[in-house]
């Protein structure tokens, strides 16, 4: 009734191929952006920022990155945690070596460093495919974490082996360090999320994105029609690692503040991001956001219900959470292998015709 395309005339190719071709979608998107930028920063409090909003934004960037590699280019990676660690340690080294450098530049540079590491570990993907590659990326995960744990140069020879973020500001507001306000951190992450979502969306619908999808659907056939597998796979690894590196840098500098590598960037994190894109939807920008929101919100919600409301012990709630996450993963794959994003698409399709379907 309300959601329909009647009267929404397209007068040019550009209008027809825009990201939100329907007016209602477009206005909805603008409204969400307006609320996120103009309302949320003024009403946000520390609990919501640190428990829900900032982790959601950071994991969104990470799952956007993994979705480019796994969802669009079909290369399953279990090295996400390791690449996030590269981003975190790169930002730490940059922050301590160049105190005057702007934090935004530092975050982007850490992404670039991670991208080069990602390309290095992406090289075997030319020979190794499928879950052989998934296991091979574990090499990146374990080697990188070990490296940051053992080589003292990376944590500036500190006694505890931890790295902690010094205070840096952006436009006069502190975004890292203990005194940074919740809304400054939130806005800093939000700007990056919007930027990266825009980049991801436009990369994936252009020439590069189409060659990624061709490689995903059948790499030999793609090679025969003229897609260069070397270039395509390595760009996917580079772009994906860039996103993941930025997420790692934010996770360390803005969100946690102090990090111990094995704990913060272990193999569990690799699985977490993989689960986000499975649940949200492989090969979908929206899916990355839905998946991140789902897996950030669900533990908070479960903890609220089980530990705070019902008064159950924390470890019991933790075990139940594992059961529920595992169950949801299996259920998603059995019922809808394309994730929640696909359910959303189907719903929209139905809504267009409602209440008078054919």
């Amino acid at each position, binding site marked *: 009734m309300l959601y329909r395309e009647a009267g929404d005339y397209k007068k040019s190719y550009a209008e027809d191929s825009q990201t939100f071709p329907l007016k209602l979608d477009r206005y909805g998107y603008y409204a969400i952006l307006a609320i996120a930028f103009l309302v949320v920063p003024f009403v946000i409090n520390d609990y919501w920022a640190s428990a829900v909003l900032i982790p959601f934004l950071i994991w969104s960037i990470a799952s956007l990155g993994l979705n480019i590699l796994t969802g669009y280019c079909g290369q399953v990676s279990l090295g996400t945690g390791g690449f996030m660690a590269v981003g975190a340690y790169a930002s730490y080294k940059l922050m301590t070596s160049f105190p005057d450098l702007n934090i935004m530049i530092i975050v982007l540079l850490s992404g670039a460093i991670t991208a080069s590491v990602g390309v290095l570990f992406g090289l075997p993907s030319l020979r190794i495919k499928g879950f052989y590659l998934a296991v091979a990326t574990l090499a990146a995960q374990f*080697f990188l974490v070990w490296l940051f744990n053992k080589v003292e140069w990376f944590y500036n020879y500190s006694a505890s082996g931890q790295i902690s973020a010094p205070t840096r500001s952006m436009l006069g507001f502190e975004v890292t360090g203990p005194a940074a306000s919740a809304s400054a951190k939130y806005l800093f992450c939000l700007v990056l999320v919007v930027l990266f979502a825009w980049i991801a969306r436009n990369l994936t619908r252009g020439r590069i994105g189409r060659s990624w999808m061709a490689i995903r659907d059948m790499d030999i056939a793609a090679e025969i029609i003229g897609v260069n597998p070397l270039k395509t796979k390595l760009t996917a690894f580079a772009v994906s690692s860039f996103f993941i590196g930025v997420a790692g840098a934010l996770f360390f500098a803005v969100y946690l503040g102090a990090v111990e590598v094995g704990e913060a960037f272990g193999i569990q994190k690799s699985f977490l991001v993989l*689960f986000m894109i499975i649940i949200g939807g492989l090969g979908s920008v929206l899916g990355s956001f839905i998946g991140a929101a789902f897996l950030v919100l669900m533990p908070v919600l479960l903890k609220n219900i089980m530990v705070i409301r019902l008064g159950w012990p924390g470890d019991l709630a933790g*075990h139940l959470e594992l059961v529920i996450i595992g169950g949801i993963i*299996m259920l998603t*794959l059995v019922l809808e292998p394309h994730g929640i994003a696909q359910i959303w698409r189907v719903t929209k399709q139905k809504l267009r015709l409602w209440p008078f379907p054919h």
Partner: protein
Amino acid sequence: MFDQFLYGTEAAINGLMTGVMYSLVALGFVLIFKSSGIFNYAQGVMALFGALTLVGIQSGQVPFAHLINAIFGTKIHHFGWTLPAILAIVLTIGVMILFAWLVERYLLKHLVNQEPIILFMATIGLAYFMEGVGDLMWGSDIKKIDLPIPQGINGTIDSLTYDWFGYGFYIDNLDIAAAIIAVVLVVALTIFSQYSTTGRALRAVADDHQAALSVGISLRSIWVIVWGIAGFIALVAGVMWGAKSGVQFSLSLITLKALPVLMLGGFTSIPGAIIGGMIIGVGEKVFEFIVSSSWFGDAMGFTMNATENWFAYVLALLFLVFRPQGLFGDKIIERV
């Protein structure tokens, strides 16, 4: 220098034994992969679950005691009996077979004809699920398993090698037992798959799903059998690892160690799993021995330690670049 060589040999033999333990886990993978093309990430969690169930049943724990206590406010934890080991083992095998049936009925049946990578991710979900269920059922505290292993083998080896080289090798009793059990398992599996009707059906399914279906082999019951056998192997592996380092969460992480073993040996080969395990086991111990030794430090200017965390993966990665199907795997042929 000669004593350095002896220490190195000792490290290598210990690595060989650890490698056999990795192979025990890898065997379960190979069985499932051959017969259904599923890469079962949950194998390690199955080992944990098997060991937890065995200890739980034997010591008479009440399943889901924590959950029941939390919901109803009761304070139950034990039935108050201890079962004999044989009975507990039989009951645990029963549980593993039931588990195999449930997995087939509620997960695999719905995922037939999906891409391998989707199936792989489904088993990751299964691994999380099982881990949670295992902890809920039996609690997450570290449990001990005492195996009735004859003592004194290592003493004999120690004194023998002392007589020969003037330096006694220390090898853990448990590792020797594990090696013997692994050999017995492989022989038993080979006999089973070569000489029994079910074994022949199993090989037929591994060879070609559709051809096997067309001669009247029920794919679904074969899958239940295979998952049951894999569950049994997981139980053995879980008990051996549990006796070594206690039955606890970290047991499920041996999956991660079994993965490079498989890649090295090839996903479809039982001997490959054993030999791959040995190569990885020896390789990581010897590599650690070399790079952490003082003469390496003198020569290179630095030493490394705790390289066991990543050595296996990097070795497998480098190996795969040159031989993508592993040592004994079937050649990968791709067509458009």
